[in-house]
């Protein structure tokens, strides 16, 4: 064992380390957005970038997943595929929708919450599958790399804005504007109200920030962590680090794929359900 390690280390030292050097390596370059198909309509920039391609792929896969698992050849006695679909549905219903939404609103808002859950899960997951979508080429071949659309703040902020708008729309629709905005004012001594009400309004806006930044920062940090550890080899221009670097990067990769991807999708959907539910029934 020890002799084998020694042999590997010697071979690694003999290997031309200059071939490994890619010059300056910076993990943050992986997150830059380049316009692949520029589309500019007036002041709007609708160009197709890396994130957009990943989002399109994610939407197609989400739809395919829903159709294949829950719509296609549905039988009374479910097979493995249908059981899996039913389990996803059950998680979405009992763990997510019924956690936050009141009974009268589940019929209307369950589809939105379940779609959020499935979509974010799929987009997060394809972010950890190496795909030839980095936009770089090496001797004519596309370079394979990992990138998640949810590690871009624009994507998560758009999703959080949806929830934000729906929350207040539903709050006003069910309670009427006067009653709804009155429910923001808590029971407190009158003298303290001028302090508490701005905080309450700030809290509503902070929800938007925390919802979007939580998903964004989680995915960004996960990718940067993996890329940095792999990149240590190129920064220090040596292959000796390979066993250490690959072990640590694999450990983080497994942690991200097994825990973070599912949890973040779950949290985003659950919090959306809770926010919408608390706006529909303000007095809990």
């Amino acid at each position, binding site marked *: 064992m020890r002799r084998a390690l020694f042999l590997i280390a010697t071979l690694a030292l003999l290997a031309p380390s200059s071939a490994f050097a890619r010059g300056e390596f910076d993990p943050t370059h992986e997150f830059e957005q380049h316009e692949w198909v520029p589309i500019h309509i007036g002041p709007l920039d609708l160009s197709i970038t890396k994130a957009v391609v990943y989002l399109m792929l994610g939407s197609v896969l989400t739809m395919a997943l829903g159709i294949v698992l829950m719509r296609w050849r549905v039988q009374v006695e479910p097979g493995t595929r249908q059981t899996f679909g039913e389990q996803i549905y059950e998680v979405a219903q009992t763990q997510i929708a019924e956690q936050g939404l009141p009974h009268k609103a589940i019929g209307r808002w369950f589809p939105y919450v379940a779609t959020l859950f499935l979509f974010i899960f799929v987009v997060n997951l394809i972010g950890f599958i190496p795909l030839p979508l980095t936009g770089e080429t090496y001797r004519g071949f596309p370079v394979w790399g990992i990138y998640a659309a949810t590690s871009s703040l624009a994507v998560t902020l758009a999703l959080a804005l949806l929830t934000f708008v729906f929350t207040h729309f539903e709050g006003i629709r069910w309670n009427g504007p006067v009653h709804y905005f009155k429910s923001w004012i808590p029971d407190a001594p009158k003298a303290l109200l001028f302090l508490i009400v701005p905080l309450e309004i700030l809290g509503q806006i902070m929800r938007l920030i925390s919802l979007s930044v*939580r998903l964004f920062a989680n995915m960004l*940090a996960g990718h940067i962590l993996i890329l940095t550890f792999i990149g240590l080899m190129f920064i220090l221009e040596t292959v000796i680090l390979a066993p250490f670097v690959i072990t640590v990067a694999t450990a983080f990769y497994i942690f991200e794929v097994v825990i973070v991807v599912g*949890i973040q999708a779950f949290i985003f959907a659950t919090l959306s359900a809770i926010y919408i539910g608390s706006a529909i029934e303000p007095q809990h």
Partner: protein
Amino acid sequence: MIDIVLAEATGDVTDAGKAIGLALGVGLGATGAGIGIGLIFSSMIQSVARQPELRGELTGIQWLGFALTEAVVFYGLLGSILAFVLV
């Protein structure tokens, strides 16, 4: 000796300060979140040990609390990186 210290200090002190700030921000954020996550899982273990039949219901709440606490690290990280890059 004093000459050496002075020579060392003429390097880019701003960068050093930024790096210390980044490390402090992430490190302190991670400390707080670490304590919080530990508390969540310890109470989860206690609850399941006392009432094992509630496990299913508690798991959802546990992961919700875990993610809410864990996100605190990333607020610290994001703020520190913003300070590191922008200032």
